[in-house]
């Protein structure tokens, strides 16, 4: 297979390793590994900030009545929790994983546009400082929900901050997506044909096209919000001839593909991890790739299932209902292929595999409740209830976040050169998987019983399940401190050196490199041999 190369000659000294100066290394870096690390650290920070907002929400909902916070602050917390988790934690985590691993997986020396890569990252801390600073403004922060529906979202004084922060996040995402597309299409090592790429790389290529297609739509939508608020336009103002429902159409044209932006790279990650620990090539490689592409296509034609309750024409409701249910087909292909990969495999259950298996099972539960919500007549009952909250948290927490955690455990030894503590990894896993279900499963029952979302107080009839959910929430939150501890230990304190091929069943270019991966890799493109590819030989 490919022989890992680190350039040891022909270059100036500073090409041999990381710059010694802290500022130069981390603020001016053009190295994909350093920028990947920055993204991952930033996303972990945002994960804990967004998580602390969730703790406020669950503490307030621990029992009926107003306990700890004022209703406006509660609304700020729900809004900020979503914005921070979506744009600050999940998306940057995948960009970080992509930054670190895509060049290593395709045999490229770096990302195609390293300076733009630096800019893409460094926009984010400014965007989130701006967004989070609104919590300290006299008028308070955004409190109209992450969906920013007018006229509600236009009532606060922080609209300009919110819009500018969203613009910055969008610019960062678009630049990141352009970089990933340019890297995958142009920087692959000779012989790394498109259908030889690892599924994770494929999933990111497709996700990057989704980002290109929908982030400008979000930018357009929030620009119109801004002009409605400050420049006297009436895009969404019925009194001026506009239409508030227009915003919902534009927002969800972005918003639904956004859901897949957060889950397709997770599919890719799990498709790397399961074959490694099942010691078998992925079952149905091409079907997996086409399924991701099909899901991406379908994500553009289902947006109005978020809006069944606004009074769509019957034909529209039927179309969006069936189109949404159609997504179950390629998703089912993926789930069956993951199971088939495990079937008959020589499986072991290290922490990444445990999280990947939990992903398959729990994401499928989230998918099934999504099918229930896709049914237009049923959605009239479920709409704006805790059932929706339960559904999307199963998809995003036990889906996207479990996959990110699995990916982190999977590649952490390659990044740091040290093994993490498997015992503590498993303690983290079992705590996470138990408490996440205690947290979110009762929310299905609350929703079915009629508890609305985004309320700080509720009927006493909902008290028990809310208390159980809050206890699960606190313990799930606390469990993530174990994750932080495992990472800190692996980076600074672990004595156990990681081998080059960290996992016995791991295949792919990244495992041919030393651990930790050298600062510069694949300056000389590697030679690709089919039989050593992660997914095995692909028939033409």
């Amino acid at each position: 297979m490919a022989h890992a190369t680190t350039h040891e000659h022909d270059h100036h000294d500073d090409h041999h390793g990381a710059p010694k100066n802290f500022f130069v290394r981390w603020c001016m870096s053009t190295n994909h590994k350093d920028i990947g690390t920055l993204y991952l650290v930033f996303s972990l920070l945002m994960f804990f900030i967004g998580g602390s907002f969730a703790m406020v929400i669950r503490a307030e909902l621990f029992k009926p009545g107003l306990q700890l916070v004022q209703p406006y602050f509660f609304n700020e917390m729900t809004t900020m929790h979503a914005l921070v988790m979506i744009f600050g934690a999940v998306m940057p985590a995948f960009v970080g994983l992509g930054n670190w691993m895509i060049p290593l997986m395709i045999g490229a020396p770096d990302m195609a546009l390293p300076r733009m890569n630096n800019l893409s990252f460094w926009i984010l801390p400014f965007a989130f400082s701006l967004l989070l600073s609104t919590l300290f403004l006299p008028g308070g922060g955004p409190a109209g929900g992450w969906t920013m529906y007018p006229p509600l979202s236009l009532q606060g004084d922080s609209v300009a901050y919110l819009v500018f922060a969203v613009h910055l996040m969008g610019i960062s995402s678009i630049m990141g997506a352009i970089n990933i597309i340019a890297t995958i299409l142009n920087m692959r090592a000779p012989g790394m044909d498109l259908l030889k790429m690892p599924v994770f790389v494929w999933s990111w290529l497709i996700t990057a096209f989704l980002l290109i297609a929908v982030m400008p739509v979000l930018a357009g939508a929030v620009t119109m919000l801004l002009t409605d608020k400050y420049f006297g336009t009436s895009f969404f103002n019925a009194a001026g001839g506009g239409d508030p429902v227009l915003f919902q159409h534009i927002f969800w044209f972005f918003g639904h593909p956004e859901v897949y932006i957060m889950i397709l790279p997770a599919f890719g990650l799990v498709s790397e991890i399961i074959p490694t620990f099942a010691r078998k090539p992925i079952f149905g490689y091409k079907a997996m790739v086409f399924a991701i592409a099909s899901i991406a296509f379908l994500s553009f034609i289902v947006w109005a299932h978020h809006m069944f309750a606004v009074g769509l024409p019957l034909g529209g409701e039927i179309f969006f209902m069936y189109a949404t249910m159609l997504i179950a087909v390629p998703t089912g292909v993926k789930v069956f292929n993951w199971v088939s990969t495990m079937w008959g495999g020589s499986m072991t259950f290290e922490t990444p595999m445990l999280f990947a298996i939990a992903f398959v099972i729990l994401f499928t539960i989230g998918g099934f409740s999504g099918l229930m919500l896709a049914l237009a007549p049923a959605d009239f009952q479920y709409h704006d209830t805790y059932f929706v909250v339960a559904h999307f948290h199963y998809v995003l927490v036990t889906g996207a976040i479990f996959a990110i955690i699995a990916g982190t455990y999977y590649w952490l030894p390659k990044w740091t050169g040290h093994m993490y503590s498997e015992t503590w990894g498993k303690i983290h896993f079992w705590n996470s998987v138990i408490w996440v279900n205690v947290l979110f499963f009762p929310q299905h029952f609350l929703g079915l019983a009629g508890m609305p979302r985004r309320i700080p107080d509720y009927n006493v009839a909902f008290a028990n399940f809310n208390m159980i959910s809050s206890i699960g929430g606190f313990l799930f939150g606390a469990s993530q401190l174990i994750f932080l501890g495992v990472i800190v230990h692996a980076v600074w304190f672990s004595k156990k050196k990681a081998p080059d091929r960290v996992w016995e069943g791991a295949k792919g270019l990244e495992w041919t490199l030393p651990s930790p991966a050298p600062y510069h890799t694949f300056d000389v493109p590697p030679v690709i041999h089919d039989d050593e590819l992660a997914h095995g030989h692909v028939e033409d």
Partner: protein
Amino acid sequence: MNQSTEAALEQSRKKGVRLTVTVVGSIAFAIFVLSLLQGLKYS
């Protein structure tokens, strides 16, 4: 891989990256403008 092949690879990568950035960047900008135009059309 000899030096001339490496240089040719580098050159073709640069050309490809420039083309990709131009096409994909233009698509992103066009979608932004189109979304504003749609807003103007329906409001």
